[in-house]
């Protein structure tokens, strides 16, 4: 059996927290560039140009592109034949977040209790989603999530009779209601099916998919394209100032569900949708 020491995990998470916040991913940058060609609103164009400039400054100076450096959402895929050595995995992941936010000059935005609202001071705990997969490797994805966009998502337990049309209307309405709050141009994560929590999880996970890559299922890819077109006809535009670029992408994921239901979840990612990942290979244990 192969193993990975927790120290290696801590250090990987620390680096990913910083990198995700400093470096806009290239797919979103490409999305901005192509929006510059299709946008016709003068203010919209100005916003897009400033967002590109902002990303350049953040990258060059290695500072956060946005001051809301988010709650750290982690997706962890553990190979079932891997052993984690030297300590508790959850503790190690949180320690990585703690060090990354402290050493990376990232804002600490987590409160310990939703009612008392006292800041934990180190941006922990992270939100951790574990998955067990075949193999001996450990895949770590860090996706810091700002709440300007997180607050604008939604869930509807649709009736099966509402069908695809009802699900699509809910997605478009949710984006319309969000207006300029989630810092458009946005990425729209949509999860349909499963149970209540499965659909919200799928919507969040959909935000990890690169802008411009459609669902591999052609039927779902077509739904994504139609939703994107409808959303961009809403007129919200960059920052909500009016324009043709409200969303850069709609990413849809589906899952089998119950005969009596059709949960539909929308998770909105802002233009600073951040995610960085690494896969650590296990070593032979001594």
């Amino acid at each position, binding site marked *: 059996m192969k193993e990975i020491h927790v120290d290696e995990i801590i250090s990987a998470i620390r680096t990913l927290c910083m990198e995700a916040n400093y470096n806009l991913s290239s797919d979103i940058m490409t999305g901005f560039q192509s929006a510059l060609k299709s946008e016709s609103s003068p203010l919209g164009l100005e916003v897009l140009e400033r967002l590109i400039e902002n990303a350049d400054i953040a990258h060059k100076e290695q500072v956060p592109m946005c001051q809301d450096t988010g709650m750290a959402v982690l997706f962890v895929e553990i190979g079932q034949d891997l052993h984690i050595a030297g300590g508790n995995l959850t503790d190690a992941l949180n320690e990585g977040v703690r060090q990354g936010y402290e050493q990376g000059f990232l804002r600490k935005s987590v409160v310990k209790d939703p009612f008392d609202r006292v800041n934990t001071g180190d941006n922990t705990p992270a939100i951790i989603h574990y998955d067990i997969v075949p193999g001996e490797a450990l895949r770590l994805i860090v996706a810091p999530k700002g709440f300007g966009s997180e607050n604008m998502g939604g869930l509807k337990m649709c009736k099966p009779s509402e069908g695809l049309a009802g699900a699509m209307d809910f997605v478009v309405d949710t984006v319309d209601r969000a207006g300029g*709050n989630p810092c458009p141009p946005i990425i729209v994560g949509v999860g349909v099916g499963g149970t209540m929590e499965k659909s919200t999880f799928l919507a969040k996970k959909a935000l990890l998919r690169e802008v411009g890559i459609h669902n591999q299922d052609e039927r779902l890819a077509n739904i994504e394209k139609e939703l994107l077109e409808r959303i961009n006809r809403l007129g919200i535009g960059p920052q909500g100032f009016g324009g043709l670029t409200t969303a850069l992408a709609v990413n849809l994921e589906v899952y089998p569900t119950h005969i009596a239901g059709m949960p539909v979840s929308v998770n909105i990612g802002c233009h600073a949708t951040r995610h960085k990942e690494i896969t650590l290979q296990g070593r032979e244990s001594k």
Partner: protein
Amino acid sequence: MSDVKRIETPLTQEKLKTLKAGDNVLLSGVIYTGRDAAHKKMVEALEQGLELPFAMKDQVIYFVGPTPAKEGQVIGSAGPTTSGRMDAYSPKLIAQGLTGMIGKGLRSPEVIDAMKEHGAVYFGAIGGAGALIAKRIVSAEVIAYPELGPEAVRRLVVKDFPAIVIIDQEGTNLYESGKARYRTV
């Protein structure tokens, strides 16, 4: 690119009259920062008859909670936060003479009514452009509520701070007019 209006603070009623929804503005001079927690404290201070951290007349508040500054930086990344969370407090500060707010996102009818009644504008800064905006901040100094950390009230001196007039003192709202212009559904 659209035409740019240069505005110096303090933001007097005189200057307000020249600002219309959709205007592209570069602000220079002193502005103050505050988010939810600081707003709550300021409004509580008002209710108890205590002094505010700064006199509101003709001043501008920027809704922001920056990241910690790195060595050599005046301030960390400093983009706007969602303004709606300040809606409960803003009318009380506008009544005290506040003439400008900078944030992002929708405002409540109560805020817009207070803006029309007393004369104030709402600017949008570019949400998420924290690194770029930090470059336009010349100095930053905590003047109240240091215990709030990133949420403390700071006095900023800004130079060419980029902002768009979202709602002017007549209540014209770019979020509505801009959307209507490009909406095809």
